[in-house]
């Protein structure tokens, strides 16, 4: 019985090791052996060019084209709103938060942003200046529909 367990266990271990060499990307951990501490890559820089990025699909929350390190967004204060808030836009010339953000869950418009939309980075994220480890093959619905149409012909 003990022998059997040992054999089964070694099979299991071998099969896990085998999977790393099958052409899949190594993932965040990299290719370092499990018993070694891999060298971490350098911290990437946050994109800070202030150029608005396109949206991959209509409902995508726009990404943040500037750095937001140490921005305070908590129950006391929301740093994002010092530029993107309704009363701040004339001076800052930043895009105002979408009108949908003023709606509460019963679709009533409020004068201030709704608590459920308060924590900006739940949806809006800054971008890091990094090479993507895998290629993104996402195409939006419009292009997908056009491609389908073309394929039918």
């Amino acid at each position: 019985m003990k022998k059997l367990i040992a054999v089964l266990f070694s099979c299991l271990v071998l099969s896990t090791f085998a999977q790393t060499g099958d052409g899949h990307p190594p993932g965040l951990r990299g290719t370092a052996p499990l018993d070694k501490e891999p060298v971490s890559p350098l911290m990437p820089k946050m994109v800070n060019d202030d150029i608005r990025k396109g949206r991959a699909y209509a409902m995508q929350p726009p990404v943040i084209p500037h750095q937001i390190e140490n921005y305070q967004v908590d129950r006391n204060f929301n740093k994002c709103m010092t530029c993107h808030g309704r009363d701040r836009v004339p001076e800052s010339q930043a895009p105002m938060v979408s009108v949908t953000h003023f709606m509460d869950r019963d679709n009533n418009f409020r004068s201030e942003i709704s608590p459920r939309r308060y924590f900006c980075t739940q949806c809006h994220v800054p971008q890091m200046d990094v090479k993507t480890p895998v290629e993104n093959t996402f195409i939006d619905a419009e292009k997908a529909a056009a491609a389908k149409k073309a394929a039918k012909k």
Partner: protein
Amino acid sequence: MKALFSRIVALTKKYWVTLSTPSKVFSLGFLTMGGFIAGIMFWGGFNTALEVTNTEAFCTSCHEMRNNVFVELQPTIHYTNRSGVRATCPDCHVPHNWTDKIARKMQASKEVWGKIFGTIDTREKFLDKRLELAQHEWTRLKANNSLECRNCHNLNSMDFTRQSKRAMQMHSTELASGNKTCIDCHKGIAHRLPDIKAGEAAK
């Protein structure tokens, strides 16, 4: 009561006579040199003691500062950065110029009072008072045109082309024209902000 008063008058008279009579024992040279040396020692001692109260170690020796505002400073750019330049408490909260420094230090005697009577000796008391305390600092920096910021950050030394687009836009217009001062936009860069509306912080 009357007896006490006349005793005080008598004592004052006695000391006045001593002080106004020329010395019988010490030479004029000894008295002048002695006074000069004592003056230097007093002045040096005074300034050394003053500088001791102007260090991060002194500020954070009280738990009110160490556990509240100091921990908030640590992750910010003024404390942790790539170039190893660090601004600590007195760099921003005490003027560097001597006269202004003394004026600020005299105001700070109120803080000694607060320490003794435990005005903010718990986290809750601190949070309740935080807005008021923050407003004192904002008013002070607004009134002195952000002097403590400008000890290091000089408008004339700013290379706008190396700033981000937004920073360049704001600094070259609002700051350069004197419409705004540093603290108008840069509140809460070294500590967490109290409960104020976002719009208020940028005014």
